């Protein structure tokens, strides 16, 4: 089966001379959840904007479900729903009006029952007569999703869907995305939270300075790159790492006051082992702090590798 989205040699240089995308090739599989990771300004939004028709590529081609986004834009765009990063809504419109507007705009005949179903799924039904400006940020985000789903798209783009969203809504949203995938919708989301990609995605692509530097199955990527670090504040400073702990990947820091343990996400059982070994060796700790390698760290590593 052909890929639902095919991006070939896509380049984008803005009029200002800034090159946002360099020779991007990307294939999205039908029915998958694909997470596009990258720091701010990496080109995530530009890439999505071009696929969705908001911006134009300078060269290269993109197709959605086999339809070229330029020559067959009507068919291509009918397939796609977009939830942009910014919460841009018509302040004075009601939820009901704005979601129905979206459906009409995408060429679909009115279907009140379907819109009602979407609003109920997103817990917006009670708010259907509310004006957009009366809604909280989280509620607005839900309306944006309802608008994107209003025309029954086969492909859904979520640009930073959980930026500035509270934990509860984030969990709701993840649940909703899984539900959509079960209904056969292909989902492409961008994020700079690795946790989000880890939670949701089947595959992950990393974009940096306008180039896709890696596309991999999530599991493979996580085990390769997901590093964790545990920092132990010692009661008594150590001058060197005791031989009993030599099997662990340890570093002494700040004149021996801190012991840092670096390990892969997959080997978290090592932590318990380290702590019990330290206990046996009589090394006491005052405090501890664990951290995960951030996406930025991963980038640094990826760049160093190249």
């Amino acid at each position, binding site marked *: 089966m052909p890929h639902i989205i095919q991006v070939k040699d896509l380049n984008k240089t803005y009029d200002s001379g800034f090159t946002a995308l360099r020779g991007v090739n990307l294939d999205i599989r039908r029915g998958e959840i694909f997470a596009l990771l990258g720091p701010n300004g990496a080109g995530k939004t530009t890439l999505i904007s071009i696929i969705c028709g908001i911006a134009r590529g300078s060269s290269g081609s993109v197709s959605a479900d086999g339809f070229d986004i330029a020559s067959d834009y009507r068919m291509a765009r009918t397939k796609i729903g977009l939830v942009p990063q910014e919460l841009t809504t018509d302040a004075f419109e009601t939820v009901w*009006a704005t979601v129905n507007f979206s459906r009409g705009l995408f060429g679909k005949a009115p279907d009140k029952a379907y819109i009602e179903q979407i609003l109920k799924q997103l817990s917006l039904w009670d708010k259907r007569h509310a004006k957009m400006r009366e809604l909280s940020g989280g509620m607005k985000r839900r309306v944006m999703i309802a608008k994107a789903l209003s025309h029954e798209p086969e492909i859904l783009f979520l640009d930073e869907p959980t930026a500035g969203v509270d934990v509860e809504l984030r969990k709701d949203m993840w649940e909703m995305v899984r539900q959509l995938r079960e209904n056969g919708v292909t989902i492409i989301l961008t994020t700079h939270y690795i946790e989000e990609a880890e939670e949701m995605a089947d595959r992950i692509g990393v974009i940096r300075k306008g180039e896709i530097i890696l596309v991999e199955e999530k599991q493979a990527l996580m085990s390769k790159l997901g590093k964790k670090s545990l920092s132990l504040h010692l009661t008594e400073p150590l001058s060197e790492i005791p031989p009993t702990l030599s099997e662990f990947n340890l570093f002494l820091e700040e004149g021996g006051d801190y012991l840092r343990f670096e390990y892969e996400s997959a080997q978290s059982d090592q932590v318990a082992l380290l702590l019990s070994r330290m206990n046996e060796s009589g090394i006491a700790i005052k405090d501890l702090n664990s951290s995960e390698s951030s996406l930025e760290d991963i980038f640094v590593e990826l760049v160093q590798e190249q």
Partner: protein
Amino acid sequence: MNIYGIMAIYKFEMARTFRTLMQSIASPVLSTSLYFIVFGTAIGSRMGEIDGVSYAAFIIPGLVMLSLLSESISNASFGIFFPKFSGTIYEVLSAPVSPFEIVAGYVGAAATKSVMLGLLILLTAKLFVDYTIVHPFWMLAFLVMTAVTFSLFGFIIGIWADDFQKLQVIPLMVITPLTFLGGAFYSINMLPEPWQTISLFNPVVYLVSGFRWAFYGVADVNVVLSLGMTTLFMVTCLVIISWIFRTGYRIRS
């Protein structure tokens, strides 16, 4: 053809009109009434007839045009400028609607509002002045053509403007003077040379003259010329708009 898409934009824009009824309809009607009281009744009663028409009746077509031009431009320019400004334009750009359909929705709604307004002003005028319309069909034709043409022009301004000041500058600095000097309140035949000839370079002269001809059967310039100039201006706007969509100028980077 994405009819649902056109209807969605059209209905959205019309809803905006009715939401801001005071601003969209009531205030132009009020200001036109003031013109009638001042120019029509108070000053007009001391003026002689022009081309066999009482001064109060003479200025009606010009006053309608004055409102029609400024409202068409402001409705259409704001209609497309605001989504651009607020960012909601993303949805229109990502939707399966052709440039023609986008223009039909926005410009259609703006022109509808202007025509409604023009008719409302004519009704208001009836309260102050007794007038007749010799060619009702052509009156309506000029009304609709002018509303569409200047809504197209407003659409261009709305795309071009990247701040609120630019949105105002053309209507204020160009259209208002051209309308006042376009024979809304006088016949250009009353002007001494060279002003009479200079006036012929003002496109509004042709609109007002043609429109007045539909009312009273008298015109400053030949009515065919009026029709031709209006069509020319409409075609020019259409050419500019098609260029805008072809190049993505200020809407699609």
